[in-house]
């Protein structure tokens, strides 16, 4: 197995990128993650999108798992309904997308939401960017729910729910429909 990178590229080109020891670099990432999550939490508490409420007490106890309550927007098929979302942040957030699922007794009946709470939404996997945030993910989910024209489960719901991994990020999603 050739290892060009290890032999000569890593000590030269890579040095400015990994300009400190791995341990220090790891600590930098951890500080970035904590500061950013604290900032996002404060802004979500202070200035949430309409119909969104974060369980701030729980999130303050454990910054890496948040529960968010979401109300269906007025004059949509989900008006009057309440949902719970769970956000899990990996230690590599915001470079890695958060793991977002619907939890609790009421999972919205929507063509992109499986009955186990998994959501088929491209920004949660391949279209993720660190410029997105909990707030923008919430807005995307609200707009996804609001544009729904018929309450139904995805056509492959039964098969998917039986065979999928617990973590929706491990699913190889096939995004085929941008209209709903």
């Amino acid at each position, binding site marked *: 197995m050739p*290892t060009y*990178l290890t032999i000569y590229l890593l000590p030269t080109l890579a040095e400015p990128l990994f300009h400190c020891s791995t341990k220090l670099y790891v600590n930098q990432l951890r500080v970035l993650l904590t500061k950013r999550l604290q900032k996002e939490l404060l802004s979500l508490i202070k200035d949430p999108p309409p119909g969104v409420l974060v369980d701030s007490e729980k999130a303050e106890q454990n910054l890496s798992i948040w529960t968010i309550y979401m109300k269906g927007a007025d004059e949509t098929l989900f008006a009057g309904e309440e949902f719970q979302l769970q956000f899990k942040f990996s230690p590599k957030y915001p*470079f890695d997308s958060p793991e977002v699922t619907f939890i609790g007794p009421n999972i919205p009946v929507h063509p992109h939401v499986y009955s186990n709470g998994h959501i088929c939404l491209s920004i949660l996997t391949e279209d993720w960017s660190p*410029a997105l945030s909990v707030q923008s993910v919430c807005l995307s989910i609200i707009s996804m729910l609001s544009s729904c024209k018929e309450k139904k489960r995805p056509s492959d719901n039964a098969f998917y729910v039986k065979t999928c991994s617990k973590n929706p990020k491990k699913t190889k999603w096939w995004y085929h429909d941008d209209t709903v």
Partner: protein
Amino acid sequence: MGNCLKGSSAEDISLLRGSENGAETSDRLGPLPPPYREALPIFYPSPNVSRPVSQLTEEEQVKIAKRMGLIQHLPTGSYDGCKKNRECVICMMEFLIGDNVRYLPCMHIYHVKCVDDWLMRSFTCPSCMEPVDAALLTCYDSNN
């Protein structure tokens, strides 16, 4: 002897607690997420594929090496207080004058350490999603 040890360790703990409460105001929002453990740097041959250097194919190594070279060609500078870009959207912190920033061809700017990490995963601008290599080529073309 046992008593003596017990006494001193209890005292040590109270000292530690005292200093934590005083100095670390950022800890008020609860415990830190689990530490990030990685023995070796991990590379991302494609955005959702991560592997340690020893498991990269030759083709992936070349791709990553080229990427590292291209990143080094993107201009850097120190933040001059420009009002158009106030915040690094990756760490969500306001830029401070003198911060080390990198300019992408689409003219979005980020902290060097924030954006370099991202570019090693995906060679796109986090804000406008423009592929950086295509934009670099257009820049070179228009300069020549």
